[in-house]
């Protein structure tokens, strides 16, 4: 698979989400995740509302719910880290788990907390997945400018994105060459762990040196076209009023669900 293949998370489409301004979408996603994260554990109605919202958005994006679903599972392994809380959070005992010599007591509060973290992160990852599936990466990076990220950092990230493909390609070529060599030797993994680490380290080292040389040539190419170290960019178009109103409305909705979760539910 080429680098371009798996580096691109964008899925072509014609939905409203595809045509909407990336800045609006990014702010919407951030607002949604902020709101979701701030819902206290155990407020199931609020979580249900957030999940309904994000899956509604996923449906409207028309890139395929299965694909969004598969991608949204990316954070699941991390949930293991919150598992102990089921047993350590003080609260009403719910069940006992006998493991070898000792017994773990799961509590109601602990389980609530655990499931809440799971739902929060799943809803958040789904929101981010819809965002990247409906927004070309370049538009997303350009949208960073509207978040008051320092211009130098945005310029660095833009250049990084351009050369990601070139360098990932180079790294994959190096790894293919390694695979070909070790197959020829007849040992699949080839040698001891240290030997393997050595070959990986050598690859990283040679990739670094090539990269360093390349950065010098790019710098020259920039200078050749008048680059003077000052970052200049063509201004981004102002946001449309309707888009802004939509953003405000959706942020209000997210905020009021989060607020209701704390105050009412």
């Amino acid at each position, binding site marked *: 698979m080429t680098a371009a293949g798996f580096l691109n998370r964008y899925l072509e489409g014609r939905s409203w989400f595809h045509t909407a301004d990336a800045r609006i979408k990014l702010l919407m996603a951030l607002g949604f995740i902020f709101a979701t*994260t701030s819902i206290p554990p155990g407020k199931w109605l609020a979580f249900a509302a957030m999940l309904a919202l994000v899956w509604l958005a996923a449906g409207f994006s028309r890139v395929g719910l299965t694909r969004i679903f598969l991608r949204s599972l990316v954070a699941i392994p991390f949930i293991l880290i919150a598992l102990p809380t089921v047993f350590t959070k003080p609260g009403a005992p719910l069940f006992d788990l006998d493991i070898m010599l000792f017994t773990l007591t799961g509590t109601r509060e602990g389980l609530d907390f655990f499931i809440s973290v799971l739902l929060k992160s799943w809803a958040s990852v789904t929101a981010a997945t819809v965002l990247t599936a409906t927004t070309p990466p370049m538009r997303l990076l350009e949208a960073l400018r509207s978040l008051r990220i320092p211009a130098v950092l945005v310029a660095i990230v833009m*250049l990084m994105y351009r050369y990601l493909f070139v360098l990932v390609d180079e790294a994959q070529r190096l790894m293919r060459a390694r695979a070909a060599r070790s197959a020829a030797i007849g040992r699949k993994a080839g040698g001891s762990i240290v030997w393997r680490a050595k070959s990986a380290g050598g690859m*990283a080292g040679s990739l670094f040196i090539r990269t360093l040389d390349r950065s010098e040539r790019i710098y020259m190419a920039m200078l050749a076209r008048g680059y003077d170290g000052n970052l200049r960019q063509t201004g981004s178009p102002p946001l449309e009023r309707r888009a802004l109103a939509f953003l405000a409305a959706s942020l209000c909705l997210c905020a009021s669900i989060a607020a209701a979760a704390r105050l009412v539910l």
Partner: protein
Amino acid sequence: MVSSITMPATGANLPLPLHAPDGFFSMPVAIAGYLLAAAFIGIAIRRANKDLNERIVPMMGVMAAFIFAAQMINFPVAGGTSGHLIGGALAAIILGPWAAILVMTAVVGMQALLFQDGGLVVLGINLLNMSIASVLAGYGVYWLARKIGASFTHLLIGGFIAAWLSVIVAAASTALMLGLSGTTPLALALPTMTGVHMLIGIGEGLITVFALSFIRAARPALLQMPEKSAVPSAAPAEPSRSGGISIRWWIVGYLISLSVVLLAPFASGSPDGLERVADDAGFIERAQAAPYAVIADYAVPGIQNQALATIAAGVIGVTLIYLLVAGGIYGIYTLYRRRATLQHE
């Protein structure tokens, strides 16, 4: 904690060691993470600008792409798992700490924004752990090793420990934030995370050392001066007169971290803030009345209450990490000052 997972949509191995997703940290911790990360990145931009001038964008941009690509170079360890580079220490050693912070910031930021590798709202925390704490700790160790001796062996041993420690610091700092958020008890998270990453760190150390020895064989000049960035500056760097990091920065940073520690147990639990305070007002009676369910081995001795134990462990942890980071910064600062005075004479 998994060292790498297979992405369902692509089948490609992407690194996912410490990239915490959204939802795992409480809001105050996430916001404090943003503020602290922003402060460090701001300093890094100023410092790197001074060193690299107009080269900063092409150099840092391509180097960030390099780290991203280098993270894909994996090597099979055992039982179907494979190790790979994270790169914080390697970047710090070959580019210098400030440039490395920028490079790692770009890497971690792009992984979150474009690849859902780490959350968006918790990005500040992930940056703090992987792009800042890890780089500074790694650089501090490497710098120290090169101070002790300038030989190739010092370079390699220093590089190994730097890389090993950079991973552990990132893991410890992640555990700390998880503890502060109440997501998982610190008394459990800290030993588990650091323990696992003491193993993962060996792979990091090995690859870093072999990468360094390759670079040293191919371009010895790049590794001669540990405190200098890999690229000769176009113009001689302006000696920094007032640009030093004042002691105020440390104190502010330390206070922010501490306040996060102290606020966290109130903000992260199930009830909202006020309820929680009321709750805690009578915590001892409740704690004894309620059937406490702590994993037997991890009950913190001497401290009855979980929240208190968390706070105590958090304060100790923050102080340790902070001293480490501040020590690194101080070392770099004195070095810069020495260079500046040398240039003046």
